[in-house]
Structure formats: C-alpha cells, structure tokens
C-alpha cells in the first residue's frame, strides 16, 4: 500500500515565521511562529484532512501549499519537482497543478465583475483558451458544479453563499489541477447548504480523479470526508493517522480533548477543560510540548523536550511522550 510513488505532494520541515528582523534602531522585532515544522505527504486520489483550532497555522500552511506564501524554511515537492523550481520555471506551472478554494465564498469573488469574467481568467491565462472553446468550457464547468449557465452573467452579490462557493469550486476546477486545497470550504455556509457542497466535492473528486487537502476546524466534517487526518496544534502536526483510527483511538491528549469538546446531537455532557489552562504564546514558543500546560498527562520530560513523531503514509503516530491508546499500528 505505502507505495511512495503515488505521493503527489510532500512537505518537509516546513516553517513559516512572520515579523522578525531588526527595527531601524537595531532593536529586535518580535517573531511570530505560525508554522513550526510540518511534514505531510498526500497520495494521489486521497483526501487528507487537517484539523485544528483557530490560530494553529492551518491557513498559513494552505497558502504555502498553493504558492500564495513562501516558506521561511523547508520545502514542498509536487510529484518529484521542487516547488521553487516550478515557480521559477514558469509563473503558471504551479497554479496549473494545485488550486485553492477559499473560506469566504462571497469575498473570494470580485464584487464588481461578472461571474463570466472571474471564471474565464484561469481558462484564458492558465489553459490558453479563447473564443468558442472558452465559452464551451465555461458551460461545462458550470454544469459540473450544478449551476445554470445563465448564472455566468450575474454579479456575486446576487448569489447565496452556497452558490458562490460552487463558483469558487468551478474556478479551481478550471485550471485542471491535480490537487485542490480546500480551506474551510463549508464553514461559512448554512448547515443545509453545507451538505450540498460536500456532496458536490465528493462527486467531483470521483469524476476528475482529484486529490484533496481538506482543512477545517469542524471534526465531524473532517471525519466524514477524509481518508487520512492530521491534527495540528500550535504550528505542528501532533497526530496523524488514517481517519477511522484517529477518531476511534486518538493517541494525542489534544485530539482526545477536541473529540470530547465537540457537541453531538442527542448527547449531553461534554468534557470541559479547566478554564485557567493557558494557550502557548506564538511570540515565544515553549521549549517542550506546546500542549503541556493544558495536558493532564504531562510529566517532567514533557516540558524539557519537544516530542517527536514519525508520520508515514499509513501509520498512526502522535507527537507525545505519554500517549493514550498505546501503539498498535506502526
């Protein structure tokens, strides 16, 4: 199974910091550690789910994957070619292979432009289409996302969130990418529309053989769509496993906490963490496990050293010295 040759995207030791450097007077500017060393790999045709709470670095990671932001350290490889090479070869090479769907569907469409113009851009600039071929392809794309072709001649404010998100998806598809990074694609949508969009995404994946990187803070959505899941905390992946294993037998105490905090219809009695537990300071990351101040299993070794993990393509591992549900798969 773990044939490395189907890996389409891989990151190694990806780091992104903001700020830093020196001020005019020579003082040090504070450095924010947004992403602190991420290794993930995605296989062709699978969905890698990434969960984590606000501020853990999910969107920073996503923006680096599509080239909207550049890593401070580490690198990203797309089926053998280094991303930096791809970008320097040809401005469009990267966008033809990996695309992005934004969280806020309405604000990802220019309010003063017809949908037609928005959707034509990737076809024209990335795929070199024009004239009738362009027109025909736009109709095909609208059809693929279940929208009527006459919607092309409307402005974004005339759409509901769900419809606008379908246009965002159509725009990503237009580039004919292998991989689509979905950054909270349904969080801004109403519950009844969320399911419409999730079902559409799953149909498109089968139809076009896409690979998804699905980022969300919503555990139940990630559980429903992902083959494998990575849990992020404070700029790092703290646990990664095939979806089923992670949700059934979480090994990192943080994953456990997340699962216990999510309300489930028909059930009562969430586990509640002590309110005084403090979050780590992104300006001064702790030397040991970032979760230690909130962790009930923390011991002396946790604050001394950063726990390490070995994330493969099919194994289950957690960056924790004293994990729950001790190792069964490796």
């Amino acid at each position, binding site marked *: 199974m773990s044939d490395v040759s189907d890996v389409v995207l891989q990151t190694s030791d990806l780091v992104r910091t903001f700020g830093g450097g020196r001020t005019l007077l020579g003082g040090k500017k504070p450095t924010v550690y947004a992403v602190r060393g991420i290794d993930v790999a995605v296989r062709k045709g699978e969905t890698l789910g990434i969960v984590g709470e606000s501020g853990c670095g999910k969107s920073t990671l996503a923006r680096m994957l599509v080239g909207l932001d550049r890593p401070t350290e580490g690198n990203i490889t797309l089926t053998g070619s280094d991303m930096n090479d791809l970008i320097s070869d040809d401005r469009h090479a990267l966008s033809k292979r990996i695309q*992005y769907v934004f969280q806020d569907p309405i604000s990802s469409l220019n309010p003063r432009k017809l949908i037609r113009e928005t959707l034509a851009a990737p076809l024209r600039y990335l795929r070199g289409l024009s004239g009738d071929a362009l027109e025909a392809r736009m109709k095909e794309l609208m059809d693929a996302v279940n929208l009527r072709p006459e919607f092309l001649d409307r402005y974004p404010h005339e759409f509901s969130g769900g419809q606008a998100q379908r246009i965002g998806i159509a725009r990503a598809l237009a580039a004919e990418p292998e991989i689509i990074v979905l950054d909270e694609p349904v969080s801004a949508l109403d519950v009844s529309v969320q399911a419409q969009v999730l079902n559409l995404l799953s149909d498109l994946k089968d139809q076009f053989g896409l690979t998804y990187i699905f980022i969300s803070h919503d555990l139940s959505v990630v559980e429903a769509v992902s083959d494998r899941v990575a849990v992020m905390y404070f700029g790092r992946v703290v646990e990664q496993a095939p979806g089923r294993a992670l949700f059934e037998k979480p090994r990192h105490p943080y994953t456990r906490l997340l699962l216990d905090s999510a*309300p489930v219809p028909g059930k*009562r009695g969430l586990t509640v963490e002590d309110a005084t537990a403090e979050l780590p300071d992104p300006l001064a990351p702790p030397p040991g496990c970032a979760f230690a101040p909130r962790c009930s299993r923390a011991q002396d070794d946790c604050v001394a050293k950063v726990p390490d993990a070995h994330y493969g393509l099919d194994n289950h591992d957690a960056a924790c010295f004293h994990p729950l549900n001790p190792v069964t798969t490796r």
Partner: protein
Amino acid sequence: MTSNTATASEIKTKKRSARPSAFKLLARNQLALMGAVILALVVLIVLITPILPLPDPDVTNPAQRLLPPFSDGHLLGTDHLGRDLLSRLLWGTRVSLAVGISASLVAALFGSTIGIVSGYFGGRTDNIMMRGIDMLMAFPYILLALAIVAALGPGLMNALYAIAVVNIPFFARNIRGVTVGIAHREFVDAAKLSGKGHIRILLTEILPNVMPVIVITISTTVGWMILETAGLSFLGLGAQPPQADLGSMLGEGRKLITTAQHLSAIPGAMIFILVMSINLLGDGIRDVLDPRLKSGALARPAPLTKIDRSDQGTSNQIADETVLAVDDLRTEFVLGDDTYKAVGGVSFDVGKNECVGLVGESGSGKSVTALSLLGLVASPPGTIVGGRVMFDGKDVYDMTENQVRDIRGGKAAYVFQDPLSTLHPLFSIGDQLVEAIRAHNAVSYRDAWAKAVKLLGMVRIPNPESRANNYPHQLSGGMRQRVGIAMALANEPRLIIADEPTTALDVTVQAQILKLMNDLRTDHGTSVLFITHDFGVVSEICDRVAVMYAGRIVEMGTTEQVLKHPAHPYTKRLIDCVPRLGEPDRRTSAIPGLPPAVNNLPAGCAFADRCDRAEEKCRVGSIAFDDLGDGHGVRCIKPMEGANV
C-alpha cells in the same frame, strides 16, 4: 443534486434592485440637485460663450472705461481698460473651470496611480513612495505652489501644474488606504491563482473597486482647486494679461475696490456660485457612492424599535412561572419597495430557570426575534407590526422608553456572537463592568469594582483582580465572550438572551462557555433564550427547542422530542444533513434548494418547494401550528410518522 431549479427560480424572482438607484438617490438630495442644476447652467453658458454675440474680451476701449453695470451695450459694465465685463467674466469662468478640472484630473491620475501601486505592493515600494508623499506634505500647501510657480515662471499652465502637484498627496493617501483594504481580500489571491499578473490584477481587479473613491475624491476637490487657481492668478502668478480668468479679474478689481466695486464683486460672486454648486454636488455624489452612507449607517436609529401594532396577540393566560411570553410577534423591514417579513408571527415562552433554544438557518429570523423582544431592532427600517411580548407579566411594547431601557442590561441581558460589538475598545473591562452595574444600581465605584472582580471570577477569568484592568484587545476570543457574559450577569438578570454566543469560538472554548451558562442556570435560577444553528449545542444546553424557518416557528417541543422524533420534515432533514461525529458512514442528505426570501414568501407552507412530502394542500392558505400533545407542536399538515410518541 436537484437544487438547480429551485435556486434558479429563487434568483429569478428576486428583484434586482431592492435599493433605489444611485441617480434616484442623488436626485432625492435637494441641495445636491440644486448644485447640479446651477453647475449645469454655468457649464452650458461657458460652453456656448464663443458663439454668443459678445464683444472680444481683450479689446480695450479707454473711452468706455469703468462703466457701471446695466450700461448701454455692456450689461455688466466695463473695467478700467474699457473691456466688456460680461464677456471677460464668461471667458474667465471658462478658463478657471478648465484649469480647475484639468488640475483635478492630473492630480487624480498621478495620485491614484501612486496610491494604488503602493497600497497593492506594500512593503518597501510602499515605504519609499509614501515617504516621498510625506515630504511633499511637509511643506505648507500654498508655499509649495508658490515655489513651483516661481521655479517654472508665472503662467496659467504652470499654475495648473503647481496645483496638481500640490494635490497629489491628498489623492495618493486616500487611494492607498482603500487599496490596502482591497489588496488583502480573497478575490485578489484568487486572481493570482487564476494566472493573472500584477499589472492585470491592478487594472482589472483593484481599479474597478477603487474607482468610486477616486470619483468621490475628485468631486470633492474640484471646487477647492478652482479656488486655488483663482488664488494664484490673484497674486499675478496664474493667467497673464490680457487673458482673463476669475482670479486675475479679482486681482485687477481689487485695485479699484473703492471706486468701482462691481469690478471685484462680479468675479467674486461667480467664484462663490461655482465653488458652492460644485461642493454641493460633490457632497451629494459622495453620499450616494459611499457604501456606509448608503446603508443608512449614519441615520441614527431610534432608541426603541418603532411599534405600530395591528393586533396585540391573542392568548391571555400566562403561567406564573413564565418569565418571557411571546405571542404572535411580527417584525418587518421596509427597504425600497420591498417589505421583508423577517418575523412573521412567532409565539413561545420561557419559564423560570429554563433554557429554550431557537434553531434555524441564516436569515430565518432568529436574531430579529431576539432583538425585537426589547425593541432593539433598528428603526428605520424595522417596525414591530403585531403581537405582544410579556416580560415578567408586563407588555414590553406598552412600556415607556425609560422602562424598557431599565430592563435592558438589568432584568434581561443580551450576549451577542461578537463580544467586541458590545465592549468598548478604550475602557478596561473592569471599568465597563462598573459602568454596567452603576447604570442600574446606586452603589459606590469601589463597591461596583469589587463586584466586577467577583463577576469576572464567576465566569472563570483567571486572576480576576489584575485582569479587570485589561482592555478588550488584550483578551482571547473565548475570554472576551466570558466578559460579555459577565456584563450580562452584572445585574442578576432573570433572563439572558444569547444570540449564537459560541459560534465564533473553538470547540474547546465553546464547551467551557456552554458549561458556564449551564452552571449559571443551576446556581442563580436564570432563564436563557439560546439562539444557535447547531443541534449538538442544543442537546448540550437546552430544555426545549423551537425550530424557525422563514420567519416562523415550524416545530417546538422538548429537546428530546424534537431531536429524537422530529415531526416537521424540515427539522428531520436539517438534523440529517449535518455530519455527526463518530458516524462517518452515515449518509448526509442535503436539502435541495434554498429557503424562500422573506420579501417574497409563497402562499401556504414556506418549506413546500424543498419538501419531498409536499402536495397541493400544502400550497394554499396558512398552515396552522398543531399541538401533538405533551408540549410538542408542529406547523405541517403531514407531520412525520412516529412523531407523537
């Protein structure tokens, strides 16, 4: 997916412009209209000046010098060289207008280009460009213009350049500010990923969005620029004799001000008329194009929602234990020609110590219901058109403004989704709590502070003594929401109305806030109206729950009844369409289509277009709210089987 037809018809029936058009808005502003008419007249006259039967403005005739107005052949008289004043005035106005407008356009072109480029690229580009602009601005305005003219030599064109240059910083700064806001919007990133280069993004994505601001800035500066040109000419640095412009005419008239006032009064009046009409029109244009003004944000809403009730509800008996009883509440918004029935007859009650949930999709009217309870809906455009809200046995809509204000934050308190909207950024949270306490109780500052610290402790803010001195921005989102709850608790309310208080929070923090609210209920006997769209949250905290759809309650019952045996097809499908943790294989079936717009509700059941059980009968009359027994009720003629178990 089958949502195609429904969504298409929804968009089709939606009227394209709920808001009046820009032109109509402008015409409605009488001052701006007056400005436009005067300006149009002046422009028309100066445009046809060359073909008017007027004497040459520059031909001198010493024999006819200094004739007063209404002289024969010289309607406005003549100047000290005997030139016809009317002719000079019209030709002069022509020049002044042309110079003022050209200078504005030149300044707009260069200023906006600098602003857009530096706002879009940011970083070093921005730094260098803006420091240059700062240097221009460091000189006093008129001095800089004078220096430029001095360097280039006097003359009309040079005056134009000087004024344009002096105004570039104004445009650059304005436009840069707007561009920075736009350059970070997601659609710009999306354009990058669509393969557009920087130049293309600047021209086709950013510029169309910045254009209104450029127009506003031009329309508010033209008048000013005309004045400045006149100023330079007045000083003899602009138009050179014999050419006339308004400033130089004024300058010449000044020398004879004691003997022939009309020489300076006439160009002076023209400058006044011109600048005033341009400014009135400019203000009008700004009001129309500025989205904030358009949305009516500057219209001060009334302290209490306008109440214009056609009825006052129907039921009369209210149980003793009831804290809040809402009966057939109806709230509408009038925007343009549309009436939005945001709340279309909502009835429910909240008992002592009870937590009632109000669930529904976006736009179903949850928030408007909550705000209507204590008259907090903005008027205009909102009006409460019917029904009754009994709080503690008294009709809120019969109370005076002061009585209602006394209840707000006193016996009934709100907690909103975004705590920042209720916390003032410039006061410490302790001070704000003290303020809230002292608004309703006559206690000393020191006692109130002590109580504030106690409240912070109660909502589990670590280290309340020192945290009380913090400002809102120093707290995390979860802590701010806890402060929001502490504010609500300040005066031991009997009822807390919480509108999606945890929606913006992470799950771990949400769990803490839910627990906190539950504890308050058990410890203090507070009642809660909890608005949410999440059935998981409902299960966690609510005793009873009402499901809203298109402004009405479609199902109500205990949490168990509604979640385990939903009677309304909408409730059932709403529960089923959310993925549930621990059940990855459960099929989530989407509800096709969209909810109807509340300004265009169908007859009969509002859910009929999306309901797979719908039949003819569902689309006629109004569907009644039926009692299924044991406090479970549903607004559906064919409730789901097994519902009334």
